[in-house]
Each structure stands twice: as C-alpha cells, then as structure tokens.
C-alpha cells in the first residue's frame, strides 16, 4: 500500500499549520488535566465515582490504548497538556516567536540520560504502585500534579521537552508502539533538508520553534521520538514536511538496535501479563500483595514483577535465540529480534484493557454528572448504575486481539530475522508461548 499524504489536503494542512486549533485543544486538555488533579485531591475518595480515576484510568486509558496509539501513534503526545505550562514558561510566550536569548538555563540533557531508560524506570515505578494508584483518587491527583511540576521544572533546566522525551512514563511506550501506527510525519524530499540553510525545523525561526522533541525531521525514519507537535510543519520554509497515511507497522521493517527500546518491549509485554494475572485474575493473595504497598508481601510482589520483566522473559528469549547461527553479537540479535514483540505487546495491552474498560465504562456517565462526588447531577446521569458492557463480545475480541498480535509478531519476527539472516523460529515460539499464557490469564 502506497503512502497517502494527508497534508495535501488544504484544510488539514492549514489546520495543522495554524497555532489556534491546537491551542484551543491544548486549553481544553489542560483544564481537564488540572480538574483531574483537583478532583483527585478534593473529590470523593471512592475511585469509581471520582473524575480523576474514572477519566484518567478508564476513559483516557481506553482512548489511548484502544484508539490513539494503534491508529495515531503519538497522537496523544500531540495534544497532551503535561508539557504545556513548562514549555510556555521556557519560551516566555504562548504564540509569539521565540527570543534569541534563552530565558532559562536551557541546558542539554546529559548524554547518559539521552535514552529511554529513565522512562522505563518511571513506568515501572508507576506499575509497581498501580494497584493503589489506579484506585486511590488522592494518589492519582498527586501523581498527575507531580508529572506537571516535573515537566515545568525540567523545562527551566533543560532545553526543549526533556520531560516528554526522557522521563514521561507514558511517552516511552507510546513511542515504542507508535511504530506500528498507520500515520507518520516525514519529510517529502531529504535532499531539500540537506540543502536547507539554518535547519529552522530543528533550530527554530520567526515562524516557530525548533523541534521540541530534539529530533531533526530530515533524519526521521521511525515514529518513536516524533511527538507530532507539528512545529516543523510551521517552521519548514520549503513546505517539505508531510503527514502520511501508511501501512500498519511500517517502522518495524527497520529493527531497533537499542537495548533501552528492547527492554521496553519486555517491560510492556511482562506488565500486561502481570496485570492480567493480578488485577483480573482470581488470586486474592496477589491482589492483596499488590495493594498493600510497603508490606513484605508487596516487596515480594515487586521482586517477582521485576524478575519476570528483567530476568525470566528476557532470559527465555535469550535462551531461544542463543543457538541461532549468526556472526552478529548476541546483544545485537537480542535488540533486533525484540522488535517482534512490539505488535504482540500492543495487542496484549489491547486485550487486557478491553476487560477492565468494558467492565468499568459505565462509571464514566456517573462521574461525568458528579465528578467530585458532591451530589451533583449535571447531565442527569449521576445515578447511572454500574453495568459491564458488551460482555458477550469480550472474550472473542480478546482472543482476536491476541491471535492477531501473534500473527503480526510472527510476521515481524520473520522480517527482523531475515534482516540479520537468522532463524525466526525461536522468536515465534516465544511469542506463541507468551500468547498462550496471556490467553489463559484472560479467558
């Protein structure tokens, strides 16, 4: 399937080039985000009736993992409100062109942190506390506020969106999975970029800011680190930036060679499996251990969690690819072949999320009318009773997602293995076994 350039459409192009539509969305998102923080802190402590829990962990999560990431890649990052206050502070402006002299420290992030290891750690930190975080409004409020203030703080110290690029716990996996999305931002002609003087897309100009994501669009080959902020569309003096529709998983044809990204695949795959077991499974002892943060049982849970992600899954994967004949070092084979786990991980998360989103979606209507639990009935839906939705479709949909993910990953494994000329069978076998485990956990 050939690419379709969406920015050929004048309406789309103008909507993206103008700052006003994006600003309008930003303001709505920021107000929603601040309201979620406030709801978490002052609203009812009953999670299922608090806006912060219901709209962040049910509504937002459903949109993110079931729609935004699979179909729009980093589409969420394009409208995420978290970096905005920091970015406005950093720039000293909302719309006006940047000053030549930076207003704050504007340091470059140290090289040792210019990877996604910090994002891996921040995601794992949230994951280990997730049973409490996902059910306790004031913890959710505090975490949301902490992310906002961390983004503001980092914006005053480092250049560009350092929080989004290197620390955001969500940004890491969105970037990883955005490689599968059927949408991309790319340059139309690389030669134009080569010849372009001043590279305003990266360095900024009177038309706009240099790439907030610290990416040179002319070198983009994957979606991973492009935040779809559309700044380069505004700054490119040659109209050389395009938003394209493309086949799914186009980026996966170029396997990664980075260990931070490889381990991100294992973190996401393992987390989905652990969540399916702990949050949806019938084992009360696991649930209690995950919930009772700080107790001996929780520490044991944390050790098992980390062991599955960092030892058991990568260990089994390595054992599988160890016998494959190749001149490439094992580390490189490991990183390249782990690309195959990206579609599988994404669909593990889709299957897992379907369970709790469909089970809890009816809370959205009640929380919409009474977001703080103060007895309001803004839209007449405050007394909507809890009822799982589409229960008859759940198991078939989950099975379809998991089997689809397996086939997609097997195909990706074949391509990645061909690229480095080794057998794909161990990786496919690994995917098959993990899919069976996930099917058992969910169904």
């Amino acid at each position, binding site marked *: 399937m050939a690419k379709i350039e969406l920015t050929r459409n004048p309406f789309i192009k103008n909507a993206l080039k103008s700052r006003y539509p994006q*600003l309008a969305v930003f*303001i709505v998102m*920021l*107000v929603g985000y*601040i*309201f979620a923080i*406030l*709801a978490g802190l*002052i*609203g*009812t*402590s*009953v999670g*299922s*009736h*608090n806006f912060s829990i219901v709209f962040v962990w049910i509504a937002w999560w459903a949109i993110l993992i079931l729609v935004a990431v699979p179909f729009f890649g980093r589409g969420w990052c394009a409208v995420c409100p978290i970096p905005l206050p920091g970015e*406005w502070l950093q720039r000293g*402006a*909302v*719309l*006006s062109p940047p000053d030549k002299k930076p207003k704050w420290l504007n340091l470059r992030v140290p090289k040792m942190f210019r990877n996604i290891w910090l994002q891996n750690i921040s995601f794992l930190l949230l994951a280990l506390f997730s049973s409490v975080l996902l059910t306790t409004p004031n913890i959710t409020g505090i975490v949301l506020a902490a992310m906002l203030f961390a983004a503001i703080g980092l914006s005053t110290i480092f250049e560009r969106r350092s929080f989004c690029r290197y620390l955001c716990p969500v940004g890491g996996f969105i970037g990883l999975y955005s490689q599968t999305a059927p949408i991309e931002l790319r340059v139309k002609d690389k030669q134009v970029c080569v010849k372009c003087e001043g590279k305003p897309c990266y360095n900024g100009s009177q038309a706009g800011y240099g790439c907030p994501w610290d990416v040179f669009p002319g070198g983009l080959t994957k979606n991973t680190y492009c935040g779809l902020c559309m700044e380069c569309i505004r700054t490119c003096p040659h109209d050389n930036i395009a938003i394209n529709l493309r086949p799914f998983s186009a980026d996966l044809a170029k396997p990664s060679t980075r260990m931070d990204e490889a381990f991100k695949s294992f973190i996401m795959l393992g987390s989905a499996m652990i969540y399916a077991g702990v949050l949806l499974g019938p084992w009360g002892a696991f649930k209690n251990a995950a919930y009772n943060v700080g107790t001996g049982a929780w520490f044991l849970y944390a050790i098992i969690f980390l062991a599955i992600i960092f030892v058991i899954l990568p260990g089994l994967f390595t054992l599988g690819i160890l016998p494959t004949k190749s001149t490439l070092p094992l580390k490189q084979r490991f990183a390249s072949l782990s690309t195959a786990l990206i579609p599988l991980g994404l669909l593990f998360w889709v299957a897992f999320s379907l369970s709790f989103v469909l089970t809890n979606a009816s809370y959205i209507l009640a929380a919409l009318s*009474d977001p*703080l*639990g*103060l*007895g309001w009935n803004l839209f007449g839906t405050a007394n909507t009773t809890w009822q799982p939705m589409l229960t008859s479709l759940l198991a078939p949909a989950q099975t379809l997602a998991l089997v689809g993910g397996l086939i997609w990953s097997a195909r990706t494994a074949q391509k990645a293995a061909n690229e480095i000329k080794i057998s794909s069978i161990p990786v496919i076998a690994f995917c098959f076994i993990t899919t069976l485990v996930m099917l058992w956990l969910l169904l």
Partner: protein
Amino acid sequence: MKRSELLSRILITVTIVGAIGTPLFIWARTPLIHASVAEDGGWNPDTIQAHIGVPLHLKLTSDDVVHGFAVGQIDMQSVDVLPGKVTDLTLTFDKPGIYTFFCTRWCGLNHWRMRGTIEVSGSPSEPEPATVPMYVTLNLDIDVLHDSPVVPKQTPSAIRGQELITNSPILRSSNYYRSHSPYQVFDDLSDTSLTESQRWDVVAYLWRSNTSKDSFANGKQLYTQNCAACHGENGSGDGVFADDLTAAGEASMQTMTGADDMMMQSPVDFTNPVRMLGASPALLQGKILRGGMGTGMPMWGSIFTEEQIWDLIAYIYSFQFEYQQ
C-alpha cells in the same frame, strides 16, 4: 506584545483559574458528612450542632463501603449512605439534648464504633424528668456471674405453661417479670405441686405473656439489625463478626498486664440456658444500656429507647423458650 499573545495568555489564565477556583468554591460550600469504617475514622465530622424546631439538612457520603445512618432515641427510618454518592436528609428535633447517630449497616468489625453526636440546643416547652433505669433502682451488679444452678431438660414451652398457670397476680405483673430471672421464678414455684418441667413451662408462659405480638416483632427487627452481626441470627454467639472480634480482642489484650485474666470474651450465646435463665430482664437491660462487661458489647443506652430495650429483651429470651407450637 502582540494582541494574539496577550489574548491567549488572558484566555489561559482565566480558564485555569476557573478550572481550579470553581470546583474549590463549590466544594468548600458543600459540607459533607463522611462515613468510613471505624478503623479509618468513622464519621467525619462526628459532632453536629442543631437547634430545636430548626430543620437540620445533612448531606451524607461514604468514603468506602455501604453505611447506614440513623439517630437514636427518635423515630426515624435509617437511610443508606453509599460510596461516592450523596444522601440528603432533613431532621427536625423538638427536644434539646445530645443525640447519638450511628451506622446501621454491618460495615466492618468495628461497625458499632461508628457513632457521632448531634447537639441540639434550645429550651424545651415542657421539661421532662429523667427516669432511672430499673437495673439501677434494683441495685444490680451487671458484671457479676449470674448462672442458673438448674436448667430444664427440654425447651420450656409457653403453650404447655399456659394450661398450668396459677392465677397469682404477682406472677403476671410486669415488675415481677422484669426483676426476676427465669430461674428465680422457677424457684418461686417450688412450693407448688408442679413438676420441674412444668415449672419451666409456666416460666416460659410468663415470659411470653409479658410481651405483645408487636413488641416481639419490634424486638426481632432490632435484634436482626443491631445484634445479629455478633450474636448470630440464631442467638448462638456466632455472628459474622464473632470470630474476628474475639481474635482482635485477644490481640489487643496481649500487651496489657494481667491479660490472661482479662481475655476478650466471645459474643454471648443466648441459647446457653445456664447464662440466660439466670439473668433477669432488668439485668439484661443494664447490659444493653451500658455495654462493656469486658467484651466488645457496645453501649446502646443512647440509641434505643426504654421501650425498644424491653422489646429486644423479650425477643432475646425466645432463644430459650418455645412461644408457639
């Protein structure tokens, strides 16, 4: 500064201040009474001020599980307090005093600790003299053992007893019934020609005749709502909280000097004839009114009216006697 920049900044500032200020303002003007299990604080606030004749509007919400709300000593239906929902309630008091409000749902092990007070101020139209409970006028020590030295071989039957009853007006008086234990009445009947079994049947009849159908039904309802969680639906001391109460009581006593002498007791077994047939209604009145006795028994004096306590006692004795065929 360009006009668009200025307008954007104003718009952002206004919307953010609105997003924070509006909910904060409304939240501050919505005083909620929060209910949570006693381990997490119970009622908050737990003291409410009111004035006689002035409607008191309450907004109740639960922060954890389903609770119930009722005020003792007044005629009101309890209301449910649901997690994350708000229950509106209006009360009007016609007498000053300190009223106790309490949870009416078995919300947890320390459910009975979920209490608060409503302080109603104002002058009463007609001052009411305080009544002294019967167990006080009889000078009963409600903490001493009161075992019955003799117990019946079969469950005493009020039906059989009715056919044997003598016409003694003393036996039929409510004061006599309330101030005597079943064993004491059994003993008082020792100079009659009745057999032991027949004397117990007469006792059963006397106990039944001192309650009405409505009082008995009311006592049963009160028992089911308030007592069965610990004492069990069938009165045998095996309510859903019984084991946990005993374990929690023992654990709390471990750190105390002389713990062995003060071990927390299990909820009383009302089917045990040794204990029950040695207790007079007045003695049980004292236990219910005051609670304690080294157990987790709550104090009900601030919640039940005197009439409700007599109704409850009448029902509790039904675990010893057959009232119907």
